[in-house]
């Protein structure tokens, strides 16, 4: 090996450059900005941990109230949407494996396509569906409620559109993984007299545990970054009970008037830390269980 091969550099290089420019440097700068006062126009001014102190401990501050209200609402969204986005796609994927199900490709496409539709366009349609005067909610189901402005209906419509748009992605992953499970295992199980449930819990689930861990961690991280659905469906209402943290962060940094980007960055860093800790925990717990 006289000469060094450059081939690996060519393969890794482009990704590395993009990662540096669009992810690593902005992340580091974002963390730096969280220790500053910055209006995006002037140079950031270093103020140490003042932003974090305000957000976490100054109970009279608007930013403290916004952060904890936003975080609480984000947790509510994560706690309810993530299980739905794991269990429903898994059930659909398993159902589609059944011998008697026809038109599998078409069903899969129908379930997958909503994920490709822009959230704004989808939200307009769903809002009309749930409209008391004009939609089916009022006219067919005789609902007398203004869904986006009444709890718990405001949350319900957010979850409906989230599940509608989010089921397809995970379903594809599960279907692909299930297809990779050896048929011999199922045949052997059948010979031993195992029923459908037994096969699902003893063969399917353990065989796809890595895709499961992956989707669980990624879906959770994605759910923490929720923004479009509450913005479009309820605009954070009623009484800011669906106002998630990303909406506050965006309003502070890019909202009305002068930007308050330092404070927004601090909130974003805190959210990032929450996601990091929870993802690591999930990965650790699931991986440990899987190895037992």
């Amino acid at each position, binding site marked *: 090996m006289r000469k060094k091969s*450059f081939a690996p550099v*060519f393969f890794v290089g482009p990704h590395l450059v993009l990662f540096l420019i669009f992810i690593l440097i902005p992340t580091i700068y974002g963390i730096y900005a969280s220790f500053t*006062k*910055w*209006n*995006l*126009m*002037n*140079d*950031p*001014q270093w*103020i140490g941990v003042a932003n974090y102190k305000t957000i976490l401990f100054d109970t*009279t*501050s*608007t*930013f403290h109230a916004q952060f904890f209200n936003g975080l609480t609402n984000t947790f509510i969204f994560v706690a309810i949407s993530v299980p739905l986005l794991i269990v429903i796609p898994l059930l659909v994927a398993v159902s589609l494996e059944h011998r008697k199900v026809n038109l599998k490709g078409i069903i899969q496409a129908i379930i997958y396509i909503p994920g490709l539709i822009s959230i704004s366009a989808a939200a307009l349609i769903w*809002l009309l569906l749930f*409209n*008391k*005067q*004009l939609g089916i909610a009022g006219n067919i189901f005789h609902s007398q409620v*203004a*869904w*986006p*402005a*009444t709890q718990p209906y405001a949350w319900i419509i957010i979850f409906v559109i989230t599940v509608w748009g989010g089921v397809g992605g995970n379903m594809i992953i599960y279907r692909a993984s299930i297809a990779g499970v050896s048929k011999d295992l199922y045949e052997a199980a059948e010979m031993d007299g195992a029923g459908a449930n037994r096969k699902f819990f003893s063969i399917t689930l353990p065989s796809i545990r890595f895709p499961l861990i992956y989707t669980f961690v990624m879906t959770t991280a994605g759910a923490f970054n929720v923004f479009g659905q509450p913005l479009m469906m309820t605009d954070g*209402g*009623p*009484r*800011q009970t669906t106002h998630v943290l990303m909406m506050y962060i965006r*309003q502070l940094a*890019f*909202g*009305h*008037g*002068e*930007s*308050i980007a*330092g*404070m927004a960055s601090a909130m974003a860093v805190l959210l990032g830390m929450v996601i990091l800790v929870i993802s690591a925990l999930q990965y650790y717990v699931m991986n440990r269980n899987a190895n037992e």
Partner: protein
Amino acid sequence: MRKRGIIMMITVFILSIVLSACGSSSDSKTITFWTPLTGDDGAYMDQLVKEYNATNPEIQVKHVITADMYTKISTVLNSGKGVPDLAIIHADRVPGFVKQGVLEQIDSAIAGHPEIKEENYLPQAWATGNIDGTQYTVPLDIHSNTMYYNKDLLKQYDVEYFLDDDIVTIDEMLSLQGKLDEGDYVVNDALLGWVILAQIQNLGGAIEENGQPAVNTPVMKQAFEEVKRIADAGLMTPFGEDGYLMFQSGNVLFSTDGTWSSTAHAAVEGLNFGVTNIYSTTADKFTNRASSHLFAMLKNDKRSDEKEAGIGAFLEFIRQNSIEWAKAGQIVASKEVIESPDYSQYMQSFFTSNEKEVESLYIYTYEYYPYVAEAVDTYCADIVRGNVDLDETLQTMQKFVEDKIAESSKAEAN
């Protein structure tokens, strides 16, 4: 080895093309013109720019519609690269931008065009770009909160007289209590925050007192209480319902949206509508809270004198020919246009039909108005619907604005 060399060259070539596309073109023969005008507004502006370029000016204008323009402005100003030669900004941005030192004086561009002067524009549109005696902007339009009315419904309920003095008062609206068919409403809650800000003026209040934000004030409280009376009487479209659509479907007498909505309403078959002023707490005064699109030059050392002259020529063209802009539903700022006979065919000409109407178009110029407006917008619906305690929420709103000001002013002190 040779193969590797070729691959390397191809890579460098592709990268250089890709990266050069990221850079800004410093074309000295083109005025780069950024606007936040999306949708139909952008198309009308495109048409205006096209008409200007068809006159074969020395320097052509290139219109770039920039969604999220204010974020991009901060990016290009920070890097100093790709700063547009000309931009359209909103009135409420001017005080902040001037304080941050990111706007050029407009005088150098308009020096060769004596007709671009205060007398030839709607006064408040011109004045909003004047900070401490220096002119930073030239106005394109005023876009205002307005109240559309459903002619058929007014006739049906025999209340056409509401419009006689051009002021529909809250008391007049309340007189319809108990007289409406089921499913009909007097007014919707579109742009409710702007309606509240109009009542502040009608009640003789202000959003700034001695340089401090004034949100938790008796006048603000009264403004909310007055508007709340309409909701309490069941005359406002229900909370959470799309009042704008309900007006278009013919169930609402009045809709408090914007001048720009007239084109959308006109497209609704069977909707027989007209336009008047936003309802008022008093029969003595009416206010339509407004904003303005303004031409401005962001700080850019590389902008040549020739380009500035080109910008002046373009602004003069707009002053004379912006009747196209009236199609977008906006109140054109140039007096030459609004005094032309063609302009009267547009619905929004109502707001320039006499002195009193022109005066009613109120643009807030307080430096921290955007924060006040954000506070009002965030909380107004819940206050008017009685979902929250008014006094407590006014305190929260005051703190909301003060906290934001404290943060931003510390950043400025830098």
